[in-house]
């Protein structure tokens, strides 16, 4: 269902496990190392993003295209397909699904431009090829096209958008206030009428009904409210199922979380974890990053979670923290949590899963950095990257070493070509011959990974994780 993640096709059919993810990649891993495959995924995501931007798509359709692409390769191998055609088809379908359709011909022509930049010649620039791929893609997606992205979960969690936004014309507080006001007016009317009848004065409606006396009346009204309306009111408010006023996160943290979510589309987390886990992971990382910055500034060495003195400076956005406190007070709820740890512990979730997801996201940054140094990708440059660099303490020497074994976009493009060619040769040979070749190749490449892995510590983590 499109309103509940738990009954959606996303939840029921498209969350997988790491072992099955590895199995789905076995064929590709015969032709490249796990790290190279990881880099290829970064590469393809980059291309999807570029193509999406050229087609003036927003982040959500781009994100949807990324998930389609990942899902497609759960069932297929890069080396047995044309990944560039597949990714163009993913963008094409995602644009339709997210209601910002683009014409098939503009997808083809823009894709041609993007792929030219990377010297990719494999893309067939014909719209009927793309249309045909769309059919295959839909089939391999089992026609499940509704995707739950963590962006919405992030906005709910951080109190930026009520879970039911759009369903109701006004917020809970507005509705509550309006009803109270109505009741107040009704009461006033009743009071006035009774007073008038008591005094038996010939009626001459007084123009505005005395705002001065309001304050005196308010208490009585509230009491009556409690008597008559409280049960009904609670039921109504609960029925809204809103998360308004539950949590409040600083604007800066939200920004970083959002950027981290953008980055997660380079990883496999969207195949492994439900969106709310991914969103909370992003918030967690963002909290850590900001608190580490604070620590550096204050030269304060307390542990990262405890030092969650949130910077409440830049809250220019929708709901500053005060409104959240107000909301809670007005609705008779408790104070919102005031530390990051308290905030995170408010979500009842399995910490093992949360940390596995966080780990998966953190792994990305060092590998990404080695694949495409931050100076090249300017649009995505932000705090998180800078930070991982700092914390890893990469020295100049290591950088030089890395350059020697550079695996960047150019190499990625060459690798894709090589993988496909090798696969075809293997498919064309009698069984035995093919197998021999594979085993030879894989020992070679294995040696390569070992070298690569020793350069940076965290790519080692990535490899270990991938091997699990």
């Amino acid at each position: 269902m499109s309103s509940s993640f738990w009954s959606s096709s996303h939840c029921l059919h498209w969350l997988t496990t790491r072992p099955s993810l590895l199995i789905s990649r076995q064929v590709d891993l015969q032709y490249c190392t796990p790290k190279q495959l990881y880099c290829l995924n970064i590469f393809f995501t980059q291309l999807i993003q570029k193509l999406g931007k050229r087609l003036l798509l927003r982040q959500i359709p781009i994100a949807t295209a990324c998930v389609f692409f990942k899902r497609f390769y759960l069932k297929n191998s890069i080396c047995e397909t044309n990944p560039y055609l597949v990714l163009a088809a993913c963008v094409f379908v995602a644009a339709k699904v997210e209601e910002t359709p683009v014409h098939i011909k503009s997808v083809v022509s823009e894709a041609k431009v993007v792929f030219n930049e990377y010297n990719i010649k494999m893309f067939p620039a014909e719209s009927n090829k793309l249309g045909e791929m769309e059919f295959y893609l839909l089939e391999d997606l089992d026609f499940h096209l509704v995707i739950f992205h963590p962006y919405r979960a992030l906005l709910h969690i951080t109190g930026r958008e009520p879970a039911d936004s759009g369903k109701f014309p006004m917020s809970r507080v507005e509705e509550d206030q309006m009803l109270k006001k109505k009741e107040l007016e009704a009461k006033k009317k009743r009071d006035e009428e009774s007073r008038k009848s008591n005094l038996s004065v010939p009626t001459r409606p007084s123009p505005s009904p005395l705002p001065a006396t309001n304050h005196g009346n308010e208490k009585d009204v509230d009491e009556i409210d409690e008597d008559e309306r409280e049960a009904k009111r609670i039921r109504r408010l609960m029925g809204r199922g809103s998360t308004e006023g539950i949590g409040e996160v600083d604007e800066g943290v939200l920004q970083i979380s959002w950027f981290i979510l953008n980055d997660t589309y380079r990883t496999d987390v969207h195949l492994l974890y439900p969106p709310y886990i991914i969103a909370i992971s992003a918030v967690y990382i963002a909290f850590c990053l900001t608190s580490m910055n604070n620590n550096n500034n204050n030269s304060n060495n307390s542990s990262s979670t405890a030092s969650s003195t949130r910077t409440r400076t830049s809250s220019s956005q929708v709901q500053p923290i005060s409104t959240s406190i107000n909301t809670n007070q007005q609705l008779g709820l408790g104070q919102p949590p005031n530390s990051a740890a308290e905030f995170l512990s408010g979500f009842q979730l399995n910490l093992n899963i949360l940390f596995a997801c966080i780990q998966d996201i953190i792994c990305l940054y060092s590998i990404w950095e080695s694949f495409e140094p931050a100076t090249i990708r300017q649009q995505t440059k932000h705090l998180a990257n800078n930070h991982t660099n700092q914390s890893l303490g990469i020295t100049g020497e290591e950088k030089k070493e890395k350059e020697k074994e550079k695996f960047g976009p150019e190499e990625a493009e060459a690798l894709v070509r090589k993988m496909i060619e090798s696969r075809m040769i293997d498919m064309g040979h009698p069984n035995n011959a093919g197998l021999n070749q594979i085993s030879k190749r894989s020992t070679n490449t294995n040696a390569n990974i070992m070298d690569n892995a020793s350069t940076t510590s965290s790519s080692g983590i990535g490899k270990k994780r991938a091997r699990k």
Partner: protein
Amino acid sequence: MAAAMASGSAMLDPMHYYRAKRDRERRTVLKTYKILGFISSGTYGRVYKAVLLPSPSSSSNTKSSSTNKSTLPSSARAALSIPKDKLPSPTTSTSSYSNTPILDPLNNPELCMRPGDLPAKEGDVFAIKKFKPDKEGDVLTYAGISQSGAREIMLNRELNHRNLTALREVILEDKAIYMVFEYAEHDFLQIIHHHSQTTRTPIPSPTLRRLLHQLLCGVHFLHSNFVLHRDLKPANILVNSAGVVKIGDLGLARLWHKPLAQGGLFGGDKVVVTIWYRAPELILGAKHYTAAVDLWAIGCIYAELLALRPIFKGDEAKMDGKKQLPFQRDQMGKICEVLGPVKADQWPGIVHMPEYKTYLSSGPYPNPNPLPTWYQHRSSSSQGYDLLTRLFEWDPARRLTAREALAHPWFQEEGGVAAKSVFEGSTITYPTRRVTHEDNGDAKMGSLPPSMAQPRLPSSSNFRPASANLTAQQPARKKTRM
């Protein structure tokens, strides 16, 4: 598998192997279903009645003529070096099936179901909606699935409710999309026709109440899933033989909780809802509208069930090739004839509507409000009248929501709506859906051999306007059609 592969030509196209594999696994419509006849057609394509075949190995009554297109291109067949007799081909269809074991997933429809497909058994009846394939001259090509096709697949695949037509599966074949829906014997339009043309009696009020209630249940479900239907009309609301209402045709429906792109709801589809059922805010050019547009349509359907003819039967102003959408003056006039012109206190927001000035200048509209008399001729329930007026609320913000409508006391009158079947207690038997046997230019989907095919019978004598995006949007269609 398929180790020996002709490498020469394959080197050029990395998709060669993939395509061959996919094509081999693809199941065909006609291997799975037997077409019983043609139901209806529209600009989107055609709908056929079909029955699920037994798995091929156990039967021999399948039509051999229909599988005249092998699913595997000959090049792929050569590449995979699959013996010819293992492939379905016109001459070998039945004989070759008997050699293959039942458990071969490629020949047993039940074993190649996808996750999310609905189970079914041999002999179950379905309605297959075939989207018209794109053509370049006379040659079929892939030009991309249309936006409405993509929506329908996306939403029907995700949503599941008693009052929605269930999508059993989607099959892609020969550059066309086939959506296999559960079959519904009746629809609101046919029920209305039966009463107005054949029996000449009003619809019994318990039946009417349950029809409307189940319709609202389905719409409430859609709205709570953030889906606007945007094309509710009697022809799109089906009723199966068990008397359960099934809302169909989500081709104009869309999800709206997501961050909306530039232009909001208006951005994608300039015209929504068939003219007679179009809400006043849409006629007045609202760019941001709400679920209330569906509730207006339900009001119109309610009135039509009572009166057996459309309540606001306006003529659609066509676009004259200009880019600007015309103001639907006649339709607005028809609404005002019944409800009276809009008063300021009924709809304060009307002054902000883009076409408000056009509305004023296209007046004067007749003053009397015949809705009470209109209603009294047809029913005496004051609750029923109350529900109707609240659905015909000018101001979309004041119009009942589906949820509020379901709680309306009218539904509790006369024994309520607890009965599962809308027909319960009624002695009227409605005719079954008319199915014709002409193949109508689509030889593949013909249910009879060409020699026996009859000329096409008109399915309905009454002309009805088509869905909004299919007529008025014709010039804009190129744009949205991807």
